[in-house]
């Protein structure tokens, strides 16, 4: 009897050991965001084989929400072996989103770190089409991520639809991201729900806008989050070169928005000369910083 059981037991032990070996964050099916604090709060990151929702706080915040969702998709599609193993991303968009917030611009995607050659874009006429194409993509395990972008609160996107998407994602292991705009929160089968607001970027030289920055709020997380509600808000920046989010802890509200007047000379001073006033053109020593022209 003893002898009969032991091979089965040892098999079991071995497979358990193997599972333990693979239990790093990536292998456990988690997509880390790259920002340590968030990853810690989510104990490793977002689950890959699941549905996640990203809400734009308002219509005007859609570009930021899109940027954040794209960042998540890029993290999810990144192969473990490095960038060359990165998988394609399917993006399903309703026509109305294009009309309202502009079409996806491939050079801009490229600038955020997605090689447009890896993107497959489906433009659907209505919400039902978006849902169908999204579900089709979520069932295809060869994809790195699926981004689904309907407009508003279509009836097609009910609890059943979101369960279906979540199940498809669980089966195939494809990260499925639902980007919602002009929609109120509704019950869904999503594993996490994020709200995104754009954040003033860290100014570069001459007060130029810097890398994309977002203020995130984790509205919901199945399985709970460590820490209390106040700790579910983060400020992050997208680092395209590392293909990762970075925490924006060193950040003081006072130093970002209202530039002190003497911080922004390069644009104002020398340009006065163009008005033809020769006196004003006799500018200070830093007129060499003039950028316009």
């Amino acid at each position, binding site marked *: 009897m003893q002898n009969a059981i032991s091979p089965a037991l040892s098999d079991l032990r071995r497979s358990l050991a193997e599972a333990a070996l693979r239990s790093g964050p990536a292998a456990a099916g988690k997509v880390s965001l790259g920002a340590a604090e968030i990853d810690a709060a989510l104990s490793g990151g977002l689950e890959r084989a699941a549905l996640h929702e990203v809400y734009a706080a308002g219509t*005007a*915040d859609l570009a*930021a929400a899109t*940027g*954040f969702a*794209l960042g998540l998709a890029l993290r999810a599609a990144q192969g473990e072996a490095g960038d060359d193993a990165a998988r*394609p991303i399917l993006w399903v968009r309703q026509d109305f989103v294009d009309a309202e*917030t*502009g*079409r*996806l*611009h*491939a*050079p*801009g*995607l*490229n*600038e*955020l*770190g997605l*090689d*447009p*050659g890896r*993107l*497959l*874009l*489906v433009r*659907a006429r209505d919400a039902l089409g978006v849902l*169908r*194409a999204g579900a*089709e*993509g979520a069932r*295809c395990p*060869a994809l790195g991520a699926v981004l689904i972008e309907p407009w508003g609160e279509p009836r097609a996107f009910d609890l059943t639809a979101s369960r279906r998407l979540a199940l498809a994602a669980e089966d195939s292991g494809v990260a499925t991201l639902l980007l919602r705009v002009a929609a109120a929160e509704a019950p869904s089968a999503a594993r996490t729900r994020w709200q995104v*607001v*754009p954040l*003033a*970027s860290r*100014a*570069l030289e*001459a*007060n*130029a*806008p*810097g*890398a*994309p*920055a977002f203020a995130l709020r984790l509205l919901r997380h199945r399985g709970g989050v460590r820490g209390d509600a106040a700790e579910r808000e983060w400020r992050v920046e997208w680092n*395209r*070169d590392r293909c990762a989010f970075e925490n924006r802890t060193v950040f003081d509200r006072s130093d970002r*928005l209202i*530039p002190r007047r003497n911080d922004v000379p390069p*644009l*104002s001073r020398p340009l006065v000369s*163009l*008005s*033809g006033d020769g006196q004003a053109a006799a500018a200070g020593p830093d007129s060499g910083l003039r*950028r*316009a*022209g």
Partner: protein
Amino acid sequence: MQGNALRLADCDRRAVRLGLTRAMTLADARARIPDLVALEAEPQADRAFLDEVAAFCDRFTPLVARDEPHGLTLDVTGCAHLFGGEAGMLDLVRQVMDRSGLSLRAAIAGTPEAARACSRFGPRGIIPPGRDEAVLRLLPVAALEAEPETVIALSRAGLKTLADVAARPSETLSARFGEALAVKLRRILGHEDRRITPLRPPPDCVVERHFPEPFADTASLEAVVVRLIGEAARVLEARGEGGRAFELGFFRSDGTVRRLVIETGRPSRDAKALLRLYRERIETLADPLDPGFGFDAIKLAVPVCEPLNTQQHSLDGRAVEEEAVADLVDRLVTRFGRDRVLRFAAQDTHHPVRAAKALSAAAPMPEAAWPAPEPQEPPARPLQLFEPPQPVEAIAEVPDGPPIRFRWRRLIHDVARAEGPERIAPEWWRDGSDEPMRDYYRVEDAQGRRFWLYRTGFYEAESAPPRWFLHGLFA
């Protein structure tokens, strides 16, 4: 209308019996038969109708050509046995045409010209193989369908039948009446053959089913399609080929033909995947497949075949993944249409709109690498682009500077950070020289939203005042 007179373009059988002829003036005809019913000739509509009949005849053979002006030529070589021999086929054609209210003159002969001559001038029906010449020699010279002067000249020379003409040496004939006549004669008598040019290019591979009784229920329809697809897949496999497009023709018993096309991104003969595409296609039809009184034939044609070798799956699974993505593209294209499933191709231009071209994912992708973004730099191009750009009201602090405030969609944005201008000149070789220069600014407002604005025109210029546009949104 000819020479300012209305003339009869054609007459029906009764009119001919009453003595009317083609090209007679309408006034003459009316004088003879006061209650004549004359309709305006519509050659376009006639042609369209003939094309419809041709589409219907597709069920008999894939090679159907128009036989100007009013006929059709069908190449039935090797097809007749499917319909019970040539006699059975001819009967079937006659029955079907009768049912649609068409009168038919048909002949089957060795060459297209011989068949035409027989159906118009001689014994209709089937000319037994090998007896072509004997039968056709008896036809009148009119069967040559030459110019009236030629016909008169021939009959004045005492040549009444084709046999008479053929008895003359061919050289004298071509010297007197031109080479065309000699060729025509040779073709009618079967000394020379010609291939017809079918209306629809013959497909590389065809499988079909004909039914003695038309049927209409969808379940058996699908069963037939499943079998046809399986059969086509086997044929293609035996040839080592795959199809890029599959065309299903549904022939209704009342003569209408409905065709559905399934396209695949790569050559395919995977019956399961094809069937899935077919179901997808059926589901997305704007007007569903209407069986009417039932279908009596279904035909699956593969117009384009390409070599497809059985693949050995590589161990890294990369090829399998690529295949899975290609399958997904096929399904999406079938459901949403070619122009809605897109990939982006890089274009070598500075023009912001033309820098990327959205191409159908079903088409092969041109290899063009995207420029690597500048490391450490923020995005220089927006994530979303408005086309056309949206006009905004903007105030700039200094003439050539970035805006300090602008109003877009009734909201005022205070600019907190800005960079620019980046001057992008129009492509005069495409836009013409009127297109103004654009000065682009990357701008961030007090809430942290990032915009791509541009100005056309200059403040100091005396011409048009500068105008501001919002062209894109950054993440």
